[in-house]
């Protein structure tokens, strides 16, 4: 099944959820609303065989509304196809439902996303920091978090 067919079927099933479809360098990206993300991911896994969640990450588009985007890179081990799902998350009380019930691997990826970007995953079994120390303040991958860390001289770029 080609990406177009899959996207068409996804649009048919979740007509009010799909916001945008982009194709770039042969890769398809579907942006969907975050409310039904678990249903959409379950549908992608069960009906189209996207059984491997390769990667899950957050992106900070500081200054835009909604500010965050959660990105799911999916892979189908049988047909060797890839597709990307994205869901926007607003800045105020940033949260989205967990997909760790759909793919177990999402557990640590979501912990990392919470740790580095401060996006909460509702119903996550174990939402703790993973890379930063447990008592760390702030979320380092946010665009308004200084590269040198808090309370230090700002980075001036390479001097040579």
């Amino acid at each position, binding site marked *: 099944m080609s990406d177009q067919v899959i996207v068409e079927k996804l649009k048919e099933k979740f007509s009010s959820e799909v916001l945008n479809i982009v194709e770039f360098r042969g890769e398809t990206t579907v942006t969907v609303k975050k409310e039904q993300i678990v249903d959409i991911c379950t549908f992608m896994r069960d009906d189209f065989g996207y059984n491997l969640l*390769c990667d899950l990450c957050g992106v900070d588009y500081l200054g835009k509304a909604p500010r965050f985007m959660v990105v799911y890179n999916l892979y189908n081990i049988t047909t060797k196809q890839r597709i990307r799902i994205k869901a926007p998350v607003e800045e105020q009380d940033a949260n989205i439902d967990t997909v760790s019930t759909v793919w*177990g*691997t999402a557990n*640590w990826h979501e912990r990392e996303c919470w740790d580095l970007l401060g996006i909460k995953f509702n119903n996550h079994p174990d939402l703790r920091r993973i890379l930063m120390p447990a008592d760390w303040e702030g979320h380092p991958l946010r665009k308004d978090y200084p590269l040198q860390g808090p309370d230090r001289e700002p980075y001036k770029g390479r001097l040579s």
Partner: protein
Amino acid sequence: MAANTETMTINMGPQHPSTHGVLQLILELDGEIVVKATPHIGFLHRGIEKLSEHRTYHQTIPLTDRLDYLAPMSNNLGYVLAVEKLLGITDEIPERVQRIRVIMTELTRLKSHLVWLACHALDIGAMTVFLYCFRERECITDIYEKVSGARMTSNYFRVGGLADDLPDGLEGEIRTFAESIPAHVEEYEGLLTGNRIWQKRTIGVGEISAEAAIDIGITGPALRATGVDWDLRRDNPYSGYDDYEFEVPVRKGCDTFDRYRVRLDEMRQSALIIIQALDKLKPGPILADCPKVVLPPKKDVVNNIESLIHHFKIVTEGFKTEPGEIYQSVEAPKGELGFYLIADGSAYPFRMKIRPPSFVNLQGLPQMVEGKLLADVIAVIGTLDIVLGEIDR
């Protein structure tokens, strides 16, 4: 009289010779049985993803060396392929570049698997294998040094090509080395495969089914040992891998022993790929002809003003890319290594997310050790082949 038992919680790592770096495990034990294992990571976090947002695309290449520092060229390859895809110059890469990249990444796979076997066997108690493996690994670090000047952090690939051509005479050296690999693998097998202690410590240890492995995201040799026939080199070929004939070793045992056998078979296949690539290697340019984004050849930089200007611009301000996002992954020695890049049209990546295979594979550790013996934890950490540089980034 019924004995009163209670569980005991012990700490393993981050300073522990068998955790392969700074991995900390909190183990809850009932006698010698592991009831619960909780990995703690992040001790080696250097913020590579954050740093890359403040560097040009070329300046990030040396950072990728420091992800999986036992397989730097695989990381280099994943990253440069991702940037090339973002730029849309994937088809412009000269044939010689693709072949040398394949040779070097397959040598890297051997290098990584040799360290894995050495440490895995040492953890279980087979000291000799460690010395044998490091003897062969030394040859690969020598080759690394000759092509890139560094024995570990190579920084050899460039966007659109290579830092330099292979030095004279190295092709013969690589060929001799690759031809010697099957005999060496035979030697390791002679020490381990039929060894009763080795079998007792590995057969049936750390089992995980194919469904559970896919659910938790395990990729690479660990997944192929559960009977899933999937290898990115063959199934989503990159860098001209569709041009070589090789087998993808698959086993169905799901245990530490079969993961060991899959990796040994992979070493034999890597040697075959290297020999094929050397046979097909022809002289040619080592940089793509895209002057706006790819560094000009060194001899032009010193002889030609136009090339000097391009060189200067690419080195100082970097190159701009068209806005967009791509995901590119390669079959690294440990599994699927992916780079997800978002470009906003500037000379810096807007966001770079690395999908490190070790990070995801480590997530499977609790279900592989819970309910098993404490001594098996050591075997399972070894068989997962984790590198903390890549997990913590």
